[in-house]
């Protein structure tokens, strides 16, 4: 079978695997999805699992190119909210979220960041990160294991590559 490009012109078969045609958005999404720079927002015990355990040698988030987990909104794509958001810390979560450049996503790690967790009825706990900021991926657990965090990152990668996967 003769290999042709999208214009119907014949082309060497080696180039077929090297040259791709796609919309610019798809190319950019591919770059975004494979080089997530997270802003690690550790608020409580979940930070040990989500930010330290996952970055440690055993689970090694760096394999996926999500190496640069810094506590700053500079260049960050994803905010990893790990821990209990109290009424006092909520303004800081929102402020850092607003300081991040678009496009940006959010991963809520653990019961507390999802819904307030065991402290949902407390007098000083925000019932979930989504009360403040839009959340893309929820990682359940108390605490979630590091491999669950990695799974959350991969779910987010699928969403960035093709936003249609989350449409109903």
């Amino acid at each position: 079978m003769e290999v042709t490009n999208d214009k119907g012109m014949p082309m060497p078969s080696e180039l077929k695997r090297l040259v791709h045609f796609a919309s610019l958005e798809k190319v950019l999404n591919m770059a975004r999805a494979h080089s997530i720079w997270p802003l690690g927002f550790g608020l409580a015990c979940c930070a040990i699992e989500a930010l330290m355990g996952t970055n440690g040698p055993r689970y090694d988030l760096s394999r996926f190119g999500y190496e640069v987990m810094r506590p700053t909104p500079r260049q960050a794509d994803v905010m990893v909210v790990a821990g209990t958001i109290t009424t006092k810390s909520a303004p800081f979560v929102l402020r850092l979220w607003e300081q991040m450049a678009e496009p940006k996503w959010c991963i809520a790690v653990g019961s507390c960041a999802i819904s307030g967790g065991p402290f949902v009825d407390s007098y000083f706990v925000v019932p979930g990160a989504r009360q403040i900021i839009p959340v893309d991926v929820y990682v359940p657990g108390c605490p979630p294991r590091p491999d669950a965090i990695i799974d959350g990152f991969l779910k987010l990668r699928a969403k960035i590559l093709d936003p249609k996967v989350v449409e109903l």
Partner: protein
Amino acid sequence: MEKKLSEIISELKEKFPQIKTSEETISVSTEDLLGLMQELKNSFGFNYLTNLTAADYPADAKGKGDGDEAEDDGEMEIVYNLTSVYEKLYLTVKARVSRKNPEIPSVFPVWGGANWQEREVYDLFGIVFTGHPNLKRILLTDNFEGYPLRKDYQWVGGRK
């Protein structure tokens, strides 16, 4: 200064006849508190305030004391855990205040570490420490209403 705790407590009993003592605990009135604490630090070497906390004892067990009618609204107890680092001794001092007018002298002049711990007790119980250098809320926001660790604290909210 090799002294056992029982000796220390009996010596204190001579100096402060009003205090109630048990094996490792001293109950003291708010008037005697500061003098006793200074004595404990300067003469008996209790140089470290391990912990300062409080407990709420409302008049009725359910904690729904009616402030207007009830003559006795109950009490709150402030608990000081003291350590003598050199002698390896541990001592508990307790003082009670009324829930209506919870005021007690600050022990910040004796142990500087009491600063934040007294702020925390003020934050969660509403006990006022007179003479404290900076008595404002430390855990909750300044505009927070009520004192959450009191037994009659009611709060509606949370899950939606």
